[in-house]
């Protein structure tokens, strides 16, 4: 049975690691993003590693005009279609304070853009009665914090969207995995102060594939973030509002 992964935001380090892992396993990949030269290089790499088909696909979360073409490409696949969403943007909170207009783009990149596209693709999974949507959210979406609450709010919205989509797709035999990564060793976290227990992207990719195999609903990666976030969620609001965690 052939399998294709449509990966949104495919130039990110986590997405690359996932693309390589599924290509190694013999699945096809459609790599969607903005930097086409980079995606072409990644596509060739995936083909040489074992993907029967690997293509770069133009995708901009802020430009829904391109979504129809992506849906058409996804419909043309055969076998199981899986979708992995890695898009998101996190401008520094002080930039947003200075220009509240940045909120729109942040929410579009991290939630509404990919959600709109996934909404268009969901009928394909329902019709085929198979496939998994992997939505990469963030531990930042579990509780609003002073340092990144706009990004956190967008991701919280995305988490809720994924939960509803799971409720819908499960009836058709498809599945949704919500992934909440902690700190991952990517260009986004490189050189940022205060990072700890930083996980390599390959580890996150392996965790994601394991969750897909086992049909997990929500995972934290690495797993111990579950406990860290449990504690953070348990802090009463009167205390939490005075903290800067």
């Amino acid at each position: 049975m052939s399998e294709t992964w449509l990966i949104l935001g495919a130039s990110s380090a986590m997405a690359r690691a996932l693309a390589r892992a599924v290509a190694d396993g013999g699945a096809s990949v459609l790599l969607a993003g903005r930097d086409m030269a980079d995606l072409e290089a990644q596509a060739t790499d995936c083909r040489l590693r074992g993907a029967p088909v690997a293509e770069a696909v133009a995708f901009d979360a802020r430009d829904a005009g391109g979504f129809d073409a992506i849906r058409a490409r996804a419909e043309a696949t055969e076998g199981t279609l899986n979708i992995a969403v890695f898009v998101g943007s996190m401008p520094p909170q002080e930039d947003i304070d200075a220009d509240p207009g940045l909120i729109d783009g942040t929410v579009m990149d991290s939630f509404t853009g990919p959600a709109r596209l996934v909404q268009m693709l969901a009928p394909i999974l329902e019709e085929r009665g198979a496939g998994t949507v992997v939505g990469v959210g963030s531990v930042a979406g579990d509780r609003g914090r002073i340092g990144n609450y706009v990004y956190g709010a967008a991701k919280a919205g995305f988490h809720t969207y994924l939960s509803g989509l799971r409720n819908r797709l499960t009836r058709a035999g498809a599945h949704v995995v919500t992934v909440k990564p902690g700190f991952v060793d990517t260009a986004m976290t490189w050189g940022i102060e205060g990072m700890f227990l930083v996980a390599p992207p390959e580890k996150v990719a392996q965790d994601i594939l394991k969750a897909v195999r086992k049909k997990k609903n929500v995972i934290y990666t690495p797993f111990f973030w579950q406990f860290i976030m449990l504690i953070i969620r348990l802090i009463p609001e009167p205390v939490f509002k005075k903290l800067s965690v």
Partner: protein
Amino acid sequence: MHTKTLTYRGWGRVHEATGEVARPERQRALARIMGETPGPAIGNLRSYGDVCLNDGGMAVDMTRLDRMMALDAEAGVLTVEAGVRIGDLARVLAPKGWLPAVMPGTGFATVGGAIANDVHGKNHHHAGSFGQHVREMTVLTAKGTETAQAGSELFEATVGGMGQTGAIATAELQLLPTKGDVMMVTERRITDWDEHLSYLDASTATYTVGWIDATATGAALGRGILEEAETGAGLVPPQKRAKTVPMDAPGFALSPPVVRLFNGAYWRRVPVRGRTVVKPIGEFFFPLDKIHDWNRLYGKAGFHQFQCVVPLSEADALRAMLEKIAKAGVASPLAVLKRMGPGRAGMMSFPMEGYTLAVDFHADAVTERLVAELEDATLAAGGRIYLAKDSLGRAEVVQQMYPDHGKWARIVAKHDPEGAMMTDLMRRLQLRNVA
């Protein structure tokens, strides 16, 4: 672009550097960094000494730029980003009938590092050095993106050029056909130095290397195991999972009596009549990659690898050097003897036709003095030491070993006029001084 303040070391762990390190994930980001805050490119830090260090300055970690960008499966021509690892290439390409034409002793080395040090492998006597199989590179210099074609001035200054012309972004490699992804390896016990050299001289195998027991003295001096190998097809048990050395080993782990015992047992392991075994490709080319962080076996102080090459006519001088090492009783089990061909692709490349000897020593005052004596002996024999391994060489000695360094430095100065690519090794050996 963010940078991160890092303290990093070469594989020998003797020298360390602290500085700002950028780690681009896309070619576009690399180009921006090399334009705004240029620094020497570094790979997986598998070179031993300070060739990959820039203390107090900037460095650009290339390991995230590691894609295979194009393969012409008919002609065996592969274009890669420079951060890709040789071992990954071997694993992916062998089932398709191709291998990197030259593979160093570790699969963790990157293509960029292999070019910058013009590395050699167990087939140097036939295939020459790594750089001889590079058709073209893109190099990000102070002038911008430059294409260096084989034979051009920039090419010959970049291959073996230790990163001094700029960052190698991509490279086009001519691959070597392989019958399959296993190696047929013939191992033979060698009883002494003369036998070792005569077998190396007579070997017609594609891949030939001698393991040498650098603790054996007297009549047994130069004893070891000769390995000859060809690629082949067939089934072998899958490679075992790598193990990791969890901590710095205590001093006695590689003390002289332990090493003597180990070497004796290792030598006797091969039957007197010799034997032929079938191995996975990775196990033959990268035997130590099975043990992650094996450099920690030398303990906190780290270690030096001394590697020299001397002309064929100076075999006796090399024998005298081995005798000196064996008598000092400080060698580790890792010692290699090999006959090299003349192949080299850059002005600062290490290889010359002759015999090369590589020996590891744990780092201390005794071995530092020994290495200095070995260096003098190498120069006297008309040979040279390998800068990818070096951390102790003296400027006045090394400069004489690399007679083209002045010409090379003038070309480098054209591409890096500000000296942004300088490394600790360049400062120590003063190789970029334009005389």
